[in-house]
Structures are given as C-alpha cells and as structure tokens.
C-alpha cells in the first residue's frame, strides 16, 4: 500500500515516537539516558500550569470560606480535605508533622489528579496547536507531565527527601544513623553492612516504585490513546470496509479507554497520595 500520499504522512511508528518525544531545551530528542543539561519545557510548563490551576481553584474557595452553611465549592473542597486529613491522621501519628504533611498530601492529590487529567484532552489537540503556533510541523510537545519519568520521579524524590528530613527530625541524626546500621536485622557488628544495604535498597525501591507506578500507568494510558488514534488515522489508507470499521473501532475503543482512564487518573492520584503519606509515616516510626 505504499502510495505517494503515504510518504508525506508519518507511519505509525514515527507518529508514536514523535508524540512521545519531549519538547526540551536541546531542541531535539534527548540522546543519552541521563543528561542533566536538558530540561523538558513541556513537562515543566504543564506541571506548573496544573499546579497553578489547582491552587487557584482552591484559593477561590478559601476566599469565600465560611464556618456557616458552605457553598457547593466549599463543600466539595471540605470533603476532599476531610478525606486527606483523616488519611493523614491514621498514617502519620505526629500532630506537628501533620501540619505540613496533610496539606502536602492534599497538594499531591490535587496536582497529580490534574496532571493525569491532561490525558483526557485529545492526544493530537495540544501538539497540533503547538505545531501551528510555532509554524514547525515537527515541533514536539507532550502534555501529560505524569507520563514523563522526570515528573513522577521528581515527586517521588521529593517524598524521599522529606523522609530523610523527618527521619532526622524525629530520631535525631545520630539516632537515624544508628537505625540505618542496626535495623532491620539487629544490632551486631557483623550485621551493620547488611542492615545498611537493606535500608538503602528499601529507600531506592520505595522511591523508584513510587515514581514508576504513576509514570507507567500514565505512559501506558497515553500510548494506548495514540494507538487508538492511529486506528482512525488509518481510515484513508485502507481499502473496502476496513477503513470505516477502523473508524468505528476508534470511537468504541476511544470511548471505552477514556472512561476507564477516568478511573485510573483518580486512582493513581489517590495511590500516589497514600504512598506519600505511608512513606513519610514510616519515617516517623523506629524499627
């Protein structure tokens, strides 16, 4: 089916790869796996945008907050805050810490939820607008910050830093170092090294799984939206009934996956918040 028409349009692989390439400061796809001279402008932009929208919405409620009969917006935010506050209370047993940890959990939930929600926009909409704005038909843009490993690992590393902070704050630097070498296996000189290695593995596993879980879900979701979009894109190039059927397939699969994705978006935001609380809660408890 190689026609002249198809030569201009990207094939399926090119389409997906193009969509999964970040808009970064280097101007082209990042070549090495780790390169700290590069920043993904799209991820940073949409992260801040979503954070700002979340804070803006909450601030709008806060401006008109009343202890009397609450409006709908306030009632909604109160439900959310009560939920987060109850979870925080049951997981983090230090009132002093909760003053920061509970609002942090709320931020994480709202922020991750909004960033995940970027997936609900049609996969090609914002990239298409961006390509027309810049006049560059090959301009890269990824709109879901949580489908960028940097975004999710950035948050999970933040949680890791908070775990370090609370470990030191609660147990003292000496107490924490002592725990690093004597737990979980016991206080014996021979066990110091295994203990320490175990602790390091624990921290690494927590952080990586924390970030990777969200990233994996959103990345897979995004990828699936692209594949579904490709079904419709193949409409013109297919003979006979295949084209219309592919189009119908896109509608059905797109609808189904979008509906299911609503669930994933909320669930992953909730899981990320809960794990944040759990990890910080663990930092408060001695082994």
């Amino acid at each position: 089916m190689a026609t002249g028409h198809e030569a201009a349009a990207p094939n399926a692989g090119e389409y997906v790869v193009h969509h999964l390439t970040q808009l970064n400061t280097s101007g082209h796809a990042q070549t090495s796996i780790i390169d700290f001279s590069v920043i993904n402008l799209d991820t940073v932009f949409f992260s801040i945008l979503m954070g700002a929208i979340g804070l803006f919405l909450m601030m709008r409620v806060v401006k008109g907050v009343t202890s009397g009969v609450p409006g709908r917006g306030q009632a909604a935010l109160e439900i959310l805050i009560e939920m987060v506050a109850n979870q925080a209370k049951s997981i983090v047993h230090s009132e002093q810490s909760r003053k920061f940890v509970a609002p942090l959990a709320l931020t994480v939930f709202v922020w991750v939820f909004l960033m995940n929600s970027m997936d609900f926009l049609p996969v090609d909409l914002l990239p298409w607008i961006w390509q027309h704005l810049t006049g560059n038909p090959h301009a890269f843009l990824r709109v879901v910050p949580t489908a960028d490993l940097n975004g999710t690992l950035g948050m999970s590393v933040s949680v890791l830093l908070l775990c370090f902070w609370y470990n030191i704050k609660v147990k003292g630097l000496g107490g924490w170092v002592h725990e690093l070498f004597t737990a979980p296996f016991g206080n014996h000189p021979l066990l110091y090294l295994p203990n320490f290695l175990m602790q390091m593995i624990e921290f690494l596993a927590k952080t990586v799984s924390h970030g990777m879980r969200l990233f994996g879900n959103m990345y897979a979701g995004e990828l699936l939206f692209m594949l579904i979009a490709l079904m419709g894109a193949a409409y013109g190039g297919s003979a006979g009934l295949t084209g219309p059927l592919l189009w119908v397939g896109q509608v059905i699969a797109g609808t189904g996956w979008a509906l299911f994705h609503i669930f994933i978006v909320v669930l992953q935001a909730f899981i990320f918040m809960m794990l944040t609380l759990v990890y910080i809660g663990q930092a408060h408890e001695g082994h």
Partner: protein
Amino acid sequence: MNLNATLVAQIVVFFILAWFTMKFVWPPIMKALDERATKIADGLAAAERGKQSLDLAAKRSAETVREGKEKVAEVLAQADKRALQIIEAAKVQAKLEADKIFAGEKAEIEQEAARIKESLRERVAELAVAGAEKILRREVDIKAHAEMLASIKQDL
C-alpha cells in the same frame, strides 16, 4: 524515558506547591471546619439545655398546678368549716336572743297577770262590798239592830 534536569525542576515546583497549600489553603478550611464543628456542638448543647429547661418548666408548672389545687381544696375546707362555725354561732346567738325575748315577754305577761289579778281582786272586793251592802240593805231589821245597838250601848 530519559532523565534530565526536569526532575530537579519538578522537585522545586513540588515543594513550592506544598508550601503554598500549607500556608494559604489548608488552615482557613480547617479553621472553618473546626468552627462549624464547634457551632454544631454548641447548638446541640443548647438544644439539650432547652430540652432540660422545658422539662424543668413542665415539672414546675405541674407542681404549681398541684399546689394551687391543694390550696383551693384547703380554702374550700376552711370556708366550709368557717360557715359551720358561723352557723353554729348564729344558732347560739339566736337561741340566746330568743331566750332573752322569751324571758322579757314572760315577765311582762306575769306582771300583767299580776296587775289583772290585783284589779280583779279589787273588783271582787267592791262586788263583795256592793253585794254585802245590798244584802245588808235588805236584811236590816231596825228592831233587831236597835236591840243590838242597845246591847252595844249597854256594854259601853
């Protein structure tokens, strides 16, 4: 799936957002929630107090009604007693008065009777004298009288 400085940027954004929420979003809402909880607790307590005072008032009014009834009964009993007393006293008084009147009447009647008796006695005496005079006037026998008078003269 490449790592780069976006990660660091995300960390910075993360803490700024969390700080903002902690500073400006969380406290006012929590304050409102706590205040409302206090208000509701106060309202419930007030309702409870109202109910208690209502109970108390009901009890007190029942008490008052009962006391009033008792007092009424007492007053009625007293009134009955007093009426009996008055009647008794009136009876005694009436009897006393009646006796007094009766005694006065009796004395008067006795006096009258005595007066009538007296006058009757006088009449009887007059009648006796008049009768005696008539009898005497018919029975006078000058001869015999003259003899009697003569004998009286003789005795003189």
